[in-house]
Structure formats: structure tokens, C-alpha cells
């Protein structure tokens, strides 16, 4: 049994590590605001953007890797002349 810097008695090394983190988070000042920003940001990114706007194009349209490979192969071997239209948009 050892006394930590918080005054609590903690038995195991893992307990002391947990105490270190818990106390560290508890004492945060600016860190609290920053964690709120991070959590809001992650919710927007994964809960809104990824879910509704950034679905995996090949992942959602095909169920097997072979289908995905066939599709991409089809895309890159389409008649070369047919790409004129798409390449016209190539200048940034």
C-alpha cells in the first residue's frame, strides 16, 4: 500500500497509474475546454460527415473485393478517347 500525491492509499502499480490519469484530468483547466472542442469535432466528423457525406464509394457499392477490382479495372481500361471530356476539367 503506497500513498500517492493525492493523499490516497493505492495498492497496485496499475492503481497508481489510474490515479495519475484521473487526477491529471481532474486538475485540467484549459484542457477541459480543449477536450470539449475535440469531442464536438469528433462527433461532427464521425457522426455527421463520415456517416452522411463521406461514405466509402467502393465499399458501399460492391460487396466483394473482386467486384471492386473489376470495377476499377473497367474504369482505367475504358476507351482512351472517352476520357477527353473528363480530362478537360483537369486544370485547377
Amino acid at each position, binding site marked *: 500500500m503506497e500513498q500517492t*500525491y493525492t493523499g490516497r492509499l493505492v495498492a497496485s502499480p496499475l492503481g497508481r497509474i489510474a490515479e*495519475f*490519469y484521473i*487526477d*491529471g*484530468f481532474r*486538475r485540467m483547466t*484549459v*484542457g477541459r*475546454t*480543449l*477536450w470539449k*472542442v*475535440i469531442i464536438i*469535432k*469528433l462527433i*461532427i*466528423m464521425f457522426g455527421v*460527415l*463520415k456517416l452522411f*457525406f*463521406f*461514405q*466509402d*464509394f*467502393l*465499399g458501399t457499392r460492391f460487396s466483394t*473485393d473482386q467486384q*471492386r*477490382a*473489376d470495377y*476499377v*479495372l*473497367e*474504369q*482505367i*481500361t*475504358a*476507351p*482512351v478517347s*472517352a*476520357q*477527353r*471530356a*473528363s*480530362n*478537360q*476539367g*483537369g*486544370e*485547377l
Partner: protein
Amino acid sequence: MIENLDPTMVNWARAQFALTAMYHWIFVPLTLGITWIIAFYHTIYVKTGSEEWKNLTKFWMKLFGINFAIGVATGIIMEFEFGTNWSNYSWMVGDIFGAPLAIEGIAAFFLEATFFAVMFFGWNRVSKRFHLFATWMVAVGSNLSAVWILVANAWMQHPVGQAFNPDTARFEMHNFADVVFNPVAVSKFTHTTSASMLFASLFILSVSSWYLLKGRHVQMAKRSIIVAAVFGLLASGFVGFTGDEAAYEDAQHQPMKLAAFEGLYQGEKNAGLVAFGLINSSKKVDDDQDPFHFEIRLPGILSMLANRKFGSFVPGINDLVYGNEEQGIMGAAEKMEKGKIAIAQLDAYKKFKKAGDEAGAAAALSLFDQNREYLGYGFLNRPEEAVPPVALSFNAFHIMVVLGTVFPLVFLAFLYFSYKDTLLEQKWLLGGGVIMFFLGLIAHQAGWVVAEVGRQPWAIQDLLPVTVARSNLTAGTVKTTFVMFLVLFTVLLIAEVSIMLKQISIGPEEN
């Protein structure tokens, strides 16, 4: 099918990626660079035991924490974009990028997450030496995690250690060491990290100059400046050295990029480097307009930069587009023919395989292999499409170089007046010091514009143009998310700047 694709979608997807990458790159260089300087501050504190150095270290650590928190996860959006807007590309490079990006994730998580907590929470809780070790490990971990993303980027600029598998439509990694020790990756990592150290020094210079102008936290600001200026000066030298190496690698593997950022249309021996010039932005590769309104060249320097040899020939845009028999340079037109053969044989291979004709498939594959290094050119319609936006590349490169030349002079001036102990009287220098952070940011962004705009039209150099790398989506879809990002990033940037300014305004005593 390609013919049904929306041509404007590519430009919106590129703009969206540029927006995301440039936003991400506001935070990353400061994180990479400032961790080293904080480690030095922390070391001085442990060596001297001075409370002032401790407060100084804690203050810069807090600003680093704010920057890290706002910047964290902004890079994830780029991965979303890969899967949605650039699905052909994502599929084709998945095997190459999987390993480096997985290592990056693991390194970032274990090294950064573990030692971050000790660095921020460890004051008076762990031993001084272990605390210092954690601070150094944050610096090492942050920079090591940057290795892997830069390895991935370098592979796109110089795709080594791979072979294309026509059955899976994927570039597969054949030699991990070749990918990791790709000379472009080495030069990219050293140039990026040293430029980040320079940028972090400028950040400290800016904040400290502001304190000195206001007459606040004078001792802390002066101490911060001395360490940052020495660090920045050393970093400047290293940036110059690694920048030279990066230009050399461009000349060897992406000569079109070098020609574009130097505005060199007609190749020449003993080519000069443009020290100062106003480029003609309406100039096209196939017209006879003068490339410059005026320019001052340093004779022979570009040849030295490109080939490590004075008097050597540096190919210009015209040589690379139309070829130069005398210099043994194959033009884009000839490469296009070979590229179209590669695509046709790939198509034939696919059909032979489907029909069960193994001999036909083997013959097609053999022809494909003979021409596969020009695969990307087969997707171009005109040789001139192999030319990147020249004016933008030129301007970005020269802005970066000019600023990169100014910064060491600024560090020297700060050190000189610190040595003379008259820094507080140099209002002009302190005023200039405040804006150095913004100039550093411009230099960094310009550097990435050179690297990424300069390699257009390629998503993977010579193998895959951006027009084929994208997904079959409409421009409207991408436009919507572009606007959403613009709003989101603006709000986040305002949040970051507000929190950062508030902490700078409070200063170190409150920590």
C-alpha cells in the same frame, strides 16, 4: 464509365483536398517543431532547477497543447476524402499505403498518447528525469509519426518498390525498404521536419516579441527568444541544405516540376536560377509569348542545383513535352503512345482472362509490362496536359525561397540585440517579430503548393492522373461538402485562435 463522369467534379475534389490539407498543415508544423524547443526549455529547467524556466516550459507546453488539440483529427478528413472522392486511387494504392499508415497510427497512439499524459500531468508527480524523458519522447514520437505519412506522400511523387497487379487493379508493395528509404521520402522528411522547427521558432519569436512590446513577462520573453533564435538559426541552415536536396530529387524524378517552379520553358546548359522575376501567367506551353515580364537570373546555379554540376543541361517544359533528341529526352507525346499500349494490353489481358485464354493473357501482360512505366500518359489527350500550373508553382516556390532567406537574418538580428542587451529598444525588430509567425505559415503553405501543384496532373507520378484517380460522383456532391468544410474549418480556426490568444494574454504567471 469514364465518359459519363462529371469533369468539374475533379476540380472540386482537388480544391476540397487542398483546403483540408492546408488547414491541417496550419497545426502540424507547429506540433512537430515546438515539441523540440519545449524539450530544450524543459532540459534547462531540470539542469538549473530554476522556477522561471519551469514556468516558461509550462507556458509553451500549454500553447502546444492548444495547438495539438485543435489540430488533432483534422487529417482524418483527408482519409474520408480518399474513400469518397478518390476511390479509384484509394483502391489502387491500398496495398502500398496500408503498412505506413498503420505504423503511423500505432506510433502516434502509443508514443504520443502515453508520453503526452506524463508530459502534461507529470509536474511534481513523477521524477524530474522521467518527466523530462517523457517530454523528449513526445518530440520524438510526433516527428516519427510524420515519417510514415511523408513516406506515403513521397511514394506518390516517386513510386518505387511496387508492381501493378492486373488481376486486382492494385499497385502492390514488393520491397518495403525501397518504399521507406525512397530518396524522395528521406528528403521530404528532413526538409519538412527542419522547416517545422524553423516555424516553431518563429511562433515563439512572435509571441515573445509581442510581450516585449507590451512590456510584459520581459525575462520570460527574452529567455524564450534566445533559445528559439538559436534553434531557428540552426534549423534555417538545415532547411536550406535539405531544400537543395529536395530540388535535386525533383530534378532526378520529377523534372517537369523543377522546370515549372523555375519557369524554364526551354532547356539549356549552364541554366540560371531565377533570383527575382515576374512570370507571365498567360503564357502557354505551345505559344511564343515570353515566359517572364522580367527576370534576374543567377547564371549556372540551376544546373548546379539540378545535377550537382555546373554547365550541365537542365530540361525545360518544352523538352519534356515535345522531346529533345539531342539530349535523349523522350517527350510526353511518345510516352502517351506507350501509355495507350499499356492500357490497351491491360484491357486485352482482362478479356483473355475472361475467355480462359491463358496464352493470350500472358502475351498481353508481357506487352503491358514493357510499357507500364508510361501507364499514366495513356490517359492524357494532349502532351501539353503533362504540364502543371506553371505560374502558381513558380510564385509559390519563390515566395518560399525568399522567406526562407529572410528568416535566418531575423534570427541573427534577435540574437545580436539580445547579446547587446538592447532588444527592448528595437521596436522595429519586435514589431517585425510579431508577424514572423504569419510569414512562416505562408512559407510552409507555399512549400506544399510547390510539392503538390508542381506534380500535377499526377496522383501517382507518371502512372495515374488525377482525372482517373477520382470517383464517379457529381460535382454538386463534392461542392456541398467543400462548403461544409469551409464553414467547419473557419469555426475551428476561430476557436483555436480565441483560446490561444486568451492564454497568450494571460501569460505564464497564471499557469
